[in-house]
């Protein structure tokens, strides 16, 4: 859709989109009927369990499974030997699911059993003998980059990494334009600071779970909680050497993902066990396994250098980012490097990112992967420069903000983006000028995320009674079935309640990319709108047949086919239900389809405003007030948009204040549970206020932008700026746990 059609978007009067209907899966979820990953059973089902390495780095000299196999009630034991050769792009995934020559982190799977009960499975694990040769390990990103650091892989680096670096450095990324040295020379103040963030976990409340069943004929079914069941199918089929058609994957209800369920861990293991045992195998991770062996996000070490004039104009921005992504290639450092300065319209900008491997679990995506740490570092330095020149931090951001026509720090020129509008909304909000008490501080930060569209396929079936069955292929994590029903109802002109949206299995609908990149309301929504339009065209065709007029003399208005145009004649409008009732007589079933690679996802920006209070004697931080401002393009279901804003903010609060992976000297995870991996609890928080800004995305028929991820980008920085103001000292290491805050306060007092 060309840009000049945007005005129509802004004035369009929606009937159902923008309202807050009850979600269609709601009653099941408040009554306990909804079935999640661990809620399925099958006749003859076995219990699958994984044996995990207690060592951070060890060569596996041998695994003796004989005693376990001999135990009564054990039906299968597998190791990496039970998997064959796989394509290059699947090797890391396979080795992560089942260690091959080396155990690369505490919790790395080395073998698995299927048995008739939990008790037998537990005993069997103890009977598996693994001969480990312990190797030195490395956990910290900066330590892993040292020339003499223990090496995980001999040849994982690609052509981007210069010679002479540690073999743990596996990728180098660089972005930017202009010349930063020229920019720094034009500044009145150039500030360089270093930052660290610890690894955090998505912390979804539902542990990974699946039920696999494979018959001797090689046909298999898999029930699993995942953000992408087509991804699970393709990956597992590749890992097990199966045809994709032989594996049907059904996505269960999913108890949170936030990026952590965009890959496989136990699923191929369950299938391999089921194949060997000839019976269904159910596997669920314990919470401890989730922490030790699923995919937390990277920890990071970042240097930032920014030049500013005394009037608050940023003359240059530079950052070097080092992320460890666990034991395999693939930290999201390139997204950190791309997004770090995306909120700023800069003439001179350069970012460099290093992807580093360590003896930690392979990172998985976590909500705007890579961006929150980069924003923390950059927004902290911008804040410090504002303080240096005694400038209003929002005005400085307004002065330098990216807007339509700005060249983004990662290359392209922005089309219509909402950052200036979002900044203005924050500046005008009463929160920004509210008074603060002693030991309190206010922080502000900007965040950006790209958003993503991707491959999408939906099918919309008009039932004979005039109701609609809508099949989508993107698992619903936060209410997307409601949004799909709204968009289909909007197009078709039928009541919301007449539509039922389901998440179809992999055999029933074409390929869909994973629910990630904040893409579902955008991409599945776009596909739903087009599928509805496809159905409308067919409905109009049937009406034309009935009336005996040309198809293009029929228009669709508010649920009715109507004759239109000079020669159309005069007929009573036909409702969708009336046309559906005679479908058999007019050509058979009526359905609309869309198969699309949905490009044109619009970027989303947010500003977070937060007040905190610091106890100067203990370093404890209390969040007093929090307001999120974010561009949603068009909020289809505002309640769930607000929910994304609030949830992202609170995950960010956790990351900023208390959540961290803590490893001992032995390389073992010290806090693999919700007791000591401290996610925010209800009593830690105030209400999270939200302001939805709507600057329509020209790439979507209703102007929708993804909203799920941007909301976790600003909070780390906003809270750090707030705590730094309250404590009177700059905090540069996340999380800002009480011992770190108190130490900084004391050091400041002595300095």
């Amino acid at each position, binding site marked *: 859709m060309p840009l000049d059609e945007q005005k129509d978007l802004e004035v369009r009067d929606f009937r159902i989109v923008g309202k807050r209907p009850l979600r269609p899966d709601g009653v099941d979820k408040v009554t306990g009927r909804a079935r999640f990953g661990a809620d399925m059973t099958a006749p003859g089902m076995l219990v699958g369990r994984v044996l995990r390495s207690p060592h951070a780095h060890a060569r596996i000299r041998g695994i003796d499974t004989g005693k376990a196999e001999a135990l009564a009630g054990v039906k299968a034991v597998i190791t990496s030997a039970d998997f064959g050769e796989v394509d290059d792009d699947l090797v890391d995934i396979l080795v992560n699911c089942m260690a091959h020559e080396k155990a690369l982190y505490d919790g790395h799977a080395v073998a698995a059993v299927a048995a008739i009960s939990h008790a037998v499975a537990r005993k069997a694990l103890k009977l598996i003998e693994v001969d480990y040769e312990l190797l030195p390990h490395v956990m910290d990103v900066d330590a892993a980059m040292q020339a003499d650091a223990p090496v995980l892989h001999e040849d994982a680096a690609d052509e981007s990494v210069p010679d002479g670096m540690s073999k743990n450095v596996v990728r180098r990324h*660089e972005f930017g334009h202009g010349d930063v040295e020229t920019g720094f020379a034009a500044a009145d103040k150039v500030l360089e600071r270093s930052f660290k963030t610890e690894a955090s976990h998505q912390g979804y409340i539902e542990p990974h779970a699946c039920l696999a069943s494979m018959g001797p004929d090689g046909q298999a079914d898999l029930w699993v909680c995942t953000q992408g069941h087509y991804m699970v199918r393709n990956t597992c089929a590749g890992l097990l050497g199966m045809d994709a058609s032989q594996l049907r994957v059904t996505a269960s209800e999913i108890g949170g993902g*936030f*990026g952590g369920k965009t890959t496989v861990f136990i699923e191929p293991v369950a299938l391999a066990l089921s194949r060997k045992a000839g019976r269904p195998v159910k596997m669920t991770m314990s919470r401890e396994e989730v922490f030790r062996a699923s995919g937390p996000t990277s920890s990071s070490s970042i240097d930032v250098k920014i030049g500013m004039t005394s009037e608050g104009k940023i003359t240059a921005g530079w950052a070097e980012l080092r992320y460890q992504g666990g034991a395999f290639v693939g930290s999201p450092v390139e997204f950190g490097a791309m997004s770090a300065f995306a909120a700023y319209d800069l003439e001179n900008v350069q970012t460099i990112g290093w992807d580093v491997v360590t003896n930690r679990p392979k990172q998985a995506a976590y909500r705007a*992967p890579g961006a929150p740490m980069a924003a923390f570092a950059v927004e902290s330095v911008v804040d410090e420069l504002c303080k240096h020149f005694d400038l209003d931090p929002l005005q400085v951001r307004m002065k330098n903000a990216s807007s339509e026509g700005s060249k983004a720090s990662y*290359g392209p020129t922005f089309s219509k983006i909402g950052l200036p509008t979002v900044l203005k909304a924050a500046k005008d909000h009463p929160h920004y000028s509210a008074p603060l008490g002693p030991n309190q501080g206010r922080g502000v930060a900007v965040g950006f995320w790209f958003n*993503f569209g991707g491959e999408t396929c939906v099918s919309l079936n008009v039932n004979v009674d005039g109701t609609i069955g809508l099949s989508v292929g993107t698992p619903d994590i936060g209410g997307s079935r409601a949004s799909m029903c709204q968009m289909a109802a909007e197009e078709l002109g039928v009541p919301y309640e007449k539509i039922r949206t389901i998440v179809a299995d992999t055999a029933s609908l074409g390929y869909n990319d994973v629910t990630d990149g904040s893409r579902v309301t955008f991409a599945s929504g776009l596909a739903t709108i087009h599928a509805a339009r496809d159905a409308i065209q067919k409905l109009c065709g049937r009406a034309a047949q009935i009336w005996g007029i040309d198809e293009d003399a029929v228009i669709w208005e508010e649920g009715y086919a109507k004759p239109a145009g000079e020669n159309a004649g005069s007929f009573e409008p036909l409702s969708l239900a009336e046309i559906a009732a005679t479908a058999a007589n007019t050509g058979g079933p009526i359905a609309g389809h869309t198969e699309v690679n949905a490009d044109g996802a619009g970027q989303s920006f947010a500003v977070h405003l937060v007040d905190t209070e610091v106890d100067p004697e203990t370093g404890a931080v209390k969040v007093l007030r929090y307001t999120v401002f974010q561009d949603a393009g068009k909020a289809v279901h505002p309640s769930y948009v607000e929910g994304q804003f609030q949830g992202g903010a609170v995950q960010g609060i956790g990351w900023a204040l208390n959540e961290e992976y803590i490893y001992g000297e032995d390389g073992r995870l010290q806090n693999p549970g919700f007791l000591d991996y401290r996610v925010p609890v209800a009593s830690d928080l105030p209400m999270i206020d939200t302001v939805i800004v709507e600057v329509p995305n020209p*790439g979507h028929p209703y102007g929708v932008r993804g909203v799920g991820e941007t909301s976790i980008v600003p909070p780390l920085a906003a809270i750090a700026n707030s705590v730094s103001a309250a404590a009177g000292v700059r905090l540069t290491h996340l999380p800002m746990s009480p011992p770190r805050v108190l130490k900084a306060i004391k050091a400041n007092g002595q300095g």
Partner: protein
Amino acid sequence: MVQVQIWGSLKAMTGGEGELQVEAKNIREMLDRLAEAYPRLKPQLARGVSVSVDGKIYRDAWFTPLKPDSEIVLLPRLSGG
């Protein structure tokens, strides 16, 4: 001819050039020509890229038309959480 901007770390594969010119009418042709003209870009192209055309980001759409005055920017393959 279309102008293609590449990201910084790829310049090491193009002899320091950050803006490349190739003859192409669509994304597929552009990627093919780049691989021919700059063989050291091949591994990255094989791993996958996104392409921004006039500010709109495409991931796989080969036949997206390119015009001589289009702003074309190569990006790492985008995904999310």
